[in-house]
């Protein structure tokens, strides 16, 4: 049961957004800019970074919904599972692997990011903006994950629901709710 009375029909972060629309607005805008708007990193790649960090933070709702969004963007569900299991062996670019290393360091704490990891990403062609965005996506999911779990939001284990959410997020982005209360 959630720690505070959140709207019962909404899962995960949707319920927190509905509870406090004032903070939902910049949070949605941040997610939309980081994950959906045109960028030299593909939306599918950015969703994989979000999914990976959420799995390190053990947030079921975020890793499942963003994993579904990544699968929809990439047309490939296996690659999401590969990144989850061991991204070094996944069928993704060397550049993305090195950005995932940085994201994993950010997840443990900002001071864990090493110059070696930064240089390794640059050697594979990562730009300053891509490194910036990988750091901020990882940092932002250390917030979103804590927000979702810290309020003990309802997180149903319903694959079909996450597949629908993932498709909505992949096509529409984050500006509007992916799930609306059925009223």
């Amino acid at each position, binding site marked *: 049961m959630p720690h505070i*009375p959140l709207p019962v029909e909404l899962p995960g972060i949707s319920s927190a957004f509905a509870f406090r629309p004032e*903070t939902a607005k*910049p949070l949605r805008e941040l997610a939309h800019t980081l994950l959906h708007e045109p960028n030299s990193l593909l939306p599918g790649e950015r969703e994989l970074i979000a999914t990976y960090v959420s799995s390190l933070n053990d947030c079921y709702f975020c890793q499942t919904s963003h994993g579904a969004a990544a699968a929809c963007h990439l047309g490939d569900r296996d690659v999401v599972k590969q990144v989850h299991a061991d991204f070094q062996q996944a069928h993704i670019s060397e550049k993305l692997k090195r950005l995932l290393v940085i994201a994993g360091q*950010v997840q443990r704490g*900002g001071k864990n990011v090493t110059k070696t990891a930064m240089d390794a990403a640059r050697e594979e062609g990562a730009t300053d903006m891509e490194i*910036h965005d990988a750091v901020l996506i990882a*940092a932002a999911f250390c*917030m979103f994950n804590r927000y979702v*779990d810290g309020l003990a939001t309802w997180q149903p284990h319903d694959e079909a629901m996450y597949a629908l959410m993932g498709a909505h997020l992949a096509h529409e982005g984050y500006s509007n709710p992916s799930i609306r209360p059925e009223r």
Partner: protein
Amino acid sequence: MAFRPETAKPLNELAEILLHAPNSLTPAERELIATYVSSQNDCYFCQTVHGAIAAAHLEGNEELVRCVKADFLNADISEKLKALLAIAGQVQKGGKFVTARDVEAARDAGATDTEIHDTVLIAAAFCMYNRYVDGLDTWQPHDEELYRQRGRKTAREGYVTMSREYLPQQGHPEQAEQGA
């Protein structure tokens, strides 16, 4: 922030709503939560700047800010704020660390649902801001007077107004300045 204005905008708006906009928790109380979480995350810049903003809201009481960081249970703050700081400390460790008992203790001390929500989100947001600042290895000057001045200005004007110093004016992205 100045490097990427598109993300700076929602980041500043979030800070403005959580820390500066009218709320049943005072700005000083919310800044103390932000300062405490930033000190738990060992982020020098964030704990110093938000500590300075908190002190500015508290008529310059830097001693209280130090007490909250060192041992908030024995600081001269309300029981409610202590219970909310306990929740914030759990969020800093990870969302699942927050227990029903922590939340009940805050309610018993008079915290509302929105105050509990905002505490969780302030703590979560500073787990982002701290990682963003340290993860990019930003320049963090060690000049207490500089933070005091900045603290007084932010306490007065809020985050969105302050960000105009380094963000481009709308429609004139070429005016973007580096630094800050």
